[in-house]
């Protein structure tokens, strides 16, 4: 049995599944690690929802320009063939289904692909959604990158989300430290397990995972 995957290994796995030439949005946080494994000069084109296609890596030193940032407000560089556009055009691009892939973090994903990633549901939390709901419905393939289990050991892949929803039936694949899961009409199919057996994952998630 292989080991459970590190964040970086999950990111590599996702990057390997993204076809050359794809237009991709990487959500804030862990999904940005995927960029380290993509060819941003000639292959994959990154979209950042604050108004750019062709986003490059994080800027360093003299490259830092406060007018050139990504959705996480990190300074970045531009790649050849980049373009800038305003927010309404940028979100129209997302909402119109033009992005090939979007990679998002999650608190929970349901077996039907419902996504919860914007709000813990804590009664005193100040709600803040940003572009999460637009991203959830805004790509041909919405991939989730997360640990399979929460700190309390509970599965984040669930029958029904208990956290407030970000989008309904929007996730197509879930990449975790313990396995890659495909959301299908028949149910959740485990593509590969890491650091656990299929049966162990069935038991710990409490889900009828398909082979």
């Amino acid at each position, binding site marked *: 049995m292989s080991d459970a995957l590190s964040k970086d290994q999950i990111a590599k796995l996702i990057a390997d599944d993204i076809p050359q030439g794809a237009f991709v949005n990487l959500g804030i946080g862990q999904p940005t690690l995927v960029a380290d494994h993509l060819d941003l000069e000639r292959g994959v084109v990154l*979209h950042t929802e604050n108004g750019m296609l*062709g986003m490059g890596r994080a800027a360093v030193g003299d490259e830092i320009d406060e007018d050139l940032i990504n959705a996480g407000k990190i300074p970045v560089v531009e790649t050849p*063939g980049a373009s800038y556009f305003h927010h309404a055009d940028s979100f129209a691009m997302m909402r119109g289904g033009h*992005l090939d892939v979007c990679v998002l973090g999650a608190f929970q994903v349901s077996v039907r692909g419902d996504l919860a990633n914007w709000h813990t549901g804590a009664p005193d939390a100040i709600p803040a959604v940003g572009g999460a709901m637009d991203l959830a419905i805004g790509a041909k393939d919405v991939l989730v990158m997360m640990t399979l289990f929460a700190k309390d050991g509970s599965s984040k892949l669930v029958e029904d989300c208990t956290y407030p929803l970000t989008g309904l039936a929007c996730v197509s694949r879930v990449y975790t430290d313990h396995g890659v899961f495909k959301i299908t009409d028949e149910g959740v199919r485990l593509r590969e397990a890491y650091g656990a057996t299929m049966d162990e994952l069935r038991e710990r998630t409490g889900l009828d995972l398909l082979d």
Partner: protein
Amino acid sequence: MTDVLEADGAADEAVADVPDGATVLIGGFGAAGQPIELIDALRRHGATDLTVVNNNAGNGDTGLAALLKTGHVRKIICSFPRQSDSWVFDDLYRSGRIELEVVPQGNLAERMRAAGAGIGAFFSPTGVGTPLAEGKEERTIEGRDYVLEYPIRGDYALIKAHTADRMGNLVYRKTARNFGPVMATAATTTIAQVVDVVETGALDPENVVTPSIFVDKVVLL
């Protein structure tokens, strides 16, 4: 990923997979921005039962008019079919051989924009109380009347731009821009004919009008 087609017959190659029954958005306003070589290629290709979306319904005997004359266009959606030289369309229409949906020009543009932007429908201020709103849902919002309009999606868009880079970013020239940028967003497959192709990086990112994500094939003519 955008294919750049430059060889002889590139226009024919670009439209070779347009199936019968397709909805084809065709750019241009008058001669400006009209992708005439792509239209000619579509005519030679011979797909039938087409729905064509254009501002007009053809002029003279060339371009869109020639395509209509083949009888391969089942329906045209446009804002202004009747012109002094639209005899091909006029004849087809009067003899019941083509279906016509007349749409106010702003609704035509906005309905394609909605298709490209994932909008399910929108309340438009244009056409309220007129024959073109008959049978459509109306609603008063904050004291103003609107009519509900639905997206117009294309299977293909044939447009004309001025310059493309090798990734498929496009810039246009003057009023030839017209419907091109909107149609590019509204079609599953967008084919742009251009007069110049430059290396990736040669277009200023500030000035790109149609980002490469909306462009599937570039045909250099």
